[in-house]
């Protein structure tokens, strides 16, 4: 069976910068979640936008339900726009500040003729209820809502067109932690109720773990590791994943780990280092890393990693290895 969303060797460039440098991944039909994690500048946001054809890939194919998204026209494009939606990070910017909540939702409903005109009002109320808001919110402007409420409206707007895939671009990172928890719960519920597929873009591993079955780790526009979320987080196969994992502050003292230190900031994406792009920061870097690009390969069943020493990282205690 074909995946709902399938990326093959997607590349996105901005001038000299290869923001996404050849990424392949699949998102099956929901309920399912694929998480994309990485630092700022890793290209994860661009990847999300490429999926929705908000930026044009320079190379590679984004296919949705077996069709090349880049070639969709007219009615097909419209139907794709209805099938794949996005929720952005900034709850302030997601909604048009000059549009009331009702109008914003109504626009979505009308563009795709989701329901007959007469039922638009009722559907708006239903959508608001579904995301935990009240019909009274219809007449509000975004600035009259709290951050969490705004994000709920944004979600409702995404849901209005009854999509099969939701791209979630850092959907909770601008929210206060208590609000974040509630929104995450909402996402969980919606995934199961609406059988949604998520492509979740986040720097927060905990959020990814909560919503995603599968995780992709992006570094400088390249996939460095990919696998089942719990496996990737429990036993990283790439030193970068390891570093990322260990840098996450843990609330429970018991689970605090010794940190794997990566030094310095990520390299300039316009001028990536030769060999393995991670080698300048990698505690394991050997000569081969400076010259040979490690391919993304299956290092364990269902696990892909792009590291010359992935097996060692997986098998041994990485921390010991790096010290």
């Amino acid at each position, binding site marked *: 069976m074909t995946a709902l969303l399938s990326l093959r060797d997607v590349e996105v460039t901005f001038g000299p910068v290869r923001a996404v440098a050849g990424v392949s991944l699949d998102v099956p039909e929901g309920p399912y979640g694929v998480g994309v994690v990485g630092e700022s500048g890793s290209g994860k946001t661009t990847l999300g936008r490429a999926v929705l054809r*908000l930026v044009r890939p320079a190379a590679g194919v984004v296919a949705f339900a077996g069709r090349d998204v880049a070639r969709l026209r007219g009615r097909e494009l419209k139907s794709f*726009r209805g099938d794949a939606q996005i929720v952005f990070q900034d709850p302030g910017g*997601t909604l048009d*500040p*000059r*549009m009331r909540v009702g109008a914003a939702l109504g*626009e979505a409903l009308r563009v795709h003729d989701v329901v007959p005109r007469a039922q638009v009002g009722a559907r708006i109320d239903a959508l608001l209820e579904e995301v935990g808001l009240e019909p009274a919110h219809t007449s509000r402007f975004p*600035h009259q809502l709290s951050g969490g409420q705004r994000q709920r409206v*944004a979600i409702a707007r995404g849901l209005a067109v009854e999509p099969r895939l939701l791209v979630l671009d850092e959907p909770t990172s601008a929210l206060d932690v208590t609000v974040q928890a509630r929104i995450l719960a909402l996402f969980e519920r919606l995934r199961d109720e609406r059988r949604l597929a998520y492509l979740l873009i986040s720097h927060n591993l905990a959020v990814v773990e909560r919503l995603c079955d599968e995780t992709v780790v992006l570094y400088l526009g390249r996939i460095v590791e990919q696998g089942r979320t719990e496996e990737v987080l429990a036993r990283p196969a790439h030193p970068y994943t390891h570093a990322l994992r260990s840098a996450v502050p843990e609330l429970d003292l018991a689970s605090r780990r010794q940190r794997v230190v990566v030094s310095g900031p990520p390299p300039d994406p316009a001028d990536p280092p030769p060999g393995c792009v991670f080698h300048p920061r990698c505690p394991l870097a050997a000569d081969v890393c400076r010259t040979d690009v490690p391919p993304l390969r299956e290092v364990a069943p269902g696990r892909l990693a792009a590291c010359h020493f992935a097996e060692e990282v997986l098998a041994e205690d990485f921390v010991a290895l790096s010290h």
Partner: protein
Amino acid sequence: MTEVAALPLVARRRALTRALRRNPLLLSGALIAFLLVVVAVFAPLIAPHPADAGTATNPIESLLPPSWHHLFGTDAVGRDLLSRVVFGARISLRIAGLVLASSILIGVPLGLAAGYFGGWIDSVIMRVTDVFLAFPALLLSLALAAVLTPSVGNATIAIAVTWWPWYARLARGQAASVAGRPFIEGARALGVPPVRTLLRHVLPNSITPVIVQASLDVGGIILTAAALSFLGLGAQDPTPEWGLMVSQGQSYFTTQWWLVTFPGAAILVAALAFNLLGDGLREVLDPRRIERR
């Protein structure tokens, strides 16, 4: 305060009332501007000798100094200066209105398109505006007005030709920044057609600075129009245009001071009022934008 620009009208109106109270310059500007509009609208009722704003002359009463009968005195052909100054408000405001309307109608759509679509559309539109902006407004108007026959209409056209690129620029900047905001991407992701996106999302979110600029520009246009008329390239006698009146009074200004003083002061007051208004509005609605002209 910086977020006020993003607020809808209701909230801005409240901010506006508050600002009016706090900002005496804005308040006085608004008041005078309002008075000017009133004077322009009711000119025939206010002017003591309305015919003198037209073709009437009265050479026997020429060059009378200000008196109770002629508050501003009379000009070289005996026309009541007050009446002419009062009717002059109509001319100036009409020119300003027409220039603004055409500049906004031409400039804003082009600018929005450039800012929203980017790419070659943007490049082409912006290079064209660059060319127009390379001429100081007065000079290009002057060249245009010089090759056309001088009249109020042609002066208006000449000024409008130099004015629209500013609005294209402004709208482009706004549209470009709005286009980068998530709700526009959201609209695109939702499949909202580009024209609808432009009209329903980009335009309403770009319009505030345009309004501020328009109120600021009224003063500039009045000055430019007066300057053209002063140079003989705009209004022609007997049109009671302020700049023309100053020009006509120039031969007498050392001996009959009122001929130049009153129409000139009218230009100053009108430009000042709208500049104060625009300046104040900018402080309130759009404090981050800075001078450009």
